[in-house]
């Protein structure tokens, strides 16, 4: 009897599940409105800056492989979609950027993947001039061994004057014979760092195949919308 009384007393003090649900929901609702509002405000405020920095980031990369002075169009707007291709090493469609000076095609900037790096895929961005020569190559992503295979990144390359990756500049699929697209150890023309030959081999192979792809598809690439 006492316990029953205590129970009903405590019931009076404590809300039912339904009222509690409503109350909690309401409070959470208010807080969410306030803080999501705050957040959305911040987002709208920074949005232009965000977009700018995203574009800037892309441009910065492109500028590394293709000098800004070489073209005058807005690359980021003049794109073409490349389907997945074994020559590019890609397994999904990628975007290529077309640099033009006036109406003339200047260069094509696109992504390629070296699939057989020492520790997985090496992602590259390559700029190929309209004449088929390479304007520049940069590594965008890789998992090669730090301190050994990572010299393909200019930042990690001990040779600051002429980083390894710049060796490709000027080569083209047409002018460089197959045999030369190898590291010196294998009888080719490219340098390497002893003890880490797998990485350069992979990059060289990927670049060669990519230039081949461009050479084969050049006209469509510049033409298509």
């Amino acid at each position, binding site marked *: 009897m006492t316990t029953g009384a205590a129970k009903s007393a405590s019931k009076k003090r404590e809300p039912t599940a339904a009222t*509690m649900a409503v*109350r*909690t929901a309401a*409070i*959470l609702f208010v*807080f*969410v409105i306030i*803080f*999501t509002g*705050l*957040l959305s405000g*911040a*987002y709208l405020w*920074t949005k232009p*800056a*965000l977009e*700018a*920095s*995203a574009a*800037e*980031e892309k441009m910065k990369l492109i500028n590394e492989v293709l000098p800004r002075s070489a073209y005058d169009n807005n690359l980021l707007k003049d794109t073409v979609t490349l389907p997945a291709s074994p020559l590019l090493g890609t397994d999904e469609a990628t975007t290529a950027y077309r640099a033009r000076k006036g109406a003339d095609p200047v260069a094509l900037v696109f992504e390629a993947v070296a699939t057989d790096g020492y520790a997985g895929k090496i992602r590259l961005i390559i700029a190929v001039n309209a004449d088929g020569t390479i304007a520049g190559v940069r590594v965008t992503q890789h998992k090669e061994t*730090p*301190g050994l295979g990572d010299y393909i990144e200019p930042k990690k390359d*001990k040779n600051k004057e002429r980083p390894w990756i710049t060796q490709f500049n000027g080569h083209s699929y047409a002018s460089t014979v197959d045999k030369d697209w190898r590291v010196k150890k294998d009888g080719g023309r490219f340098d390497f760092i002893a003890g880490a030959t797998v990485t350069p081999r992979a990059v060289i192979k990927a670049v060669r195949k990519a230039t081949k792809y461009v050479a084969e598809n050049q006209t469509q690439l510049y033409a298509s919308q």
Partner: protein
Amino acid sequence: MINREEFRSIAHNGIWKQNTSLIQILGLCPLLAVTTNMVNGVMLSLATIIVMALSNVAVASLRNFIPHEIRIPVFILIVAALVTVVDLLFNANLHELYLVLGIFIPLIVTNCIVLARVEAFAAKNPPLHATFDGIFMGIGMLWTLAVLGGLREFIGGGTLFSGIDLVFPGLSPLQLLPADYPGLLLAILPPGAFILLGCMIAWKNWVEARAAQRQPRPPIEPLAADGTN
């Protein structure tokens, strides 16, 4: 408001006595993951300090309106909103650093320190105290991250302040050891982070033990102690 004594105790707690990284062993993920160099560590700490100070203020001011049952979701909501704001700011203004720090900026939300302080301090104290608590806890975290980051990059590559160019574009890192220093890469990799933090904790234990050994003595020279203060 806040008196000198309280302020000092809050500062001492945050920076040394209740140091999040060395004593509470909280907030380890950023502590270990982003300290591949000093700059990363410092910048992430700054972001954390901002979040902590703001969320402590917010919770301390709103604490009376938050029912107990849903306090955790509300705290998290507040922290997450603030973190996202900081995230957006980093993204807009320090984009490259933003890329380096990666998911560790959003992860400030789950940084146990933030929530722990909110729960343990802000929810029970007035806003001003809470703000200082947030700031000093953050400073405690900042110096450990800075030291750990510095140690790691120094041992790992002989440099200091690498990555400074991402924050102040003009500056360049210091190369402290000769360029042919081979670099103990391990220090920069995860194992090095754990082991060096272990050593830092042992160092802190050692300092405390030494201080404890000396403590019983003070009565002998109270004047000198006063003089130094």
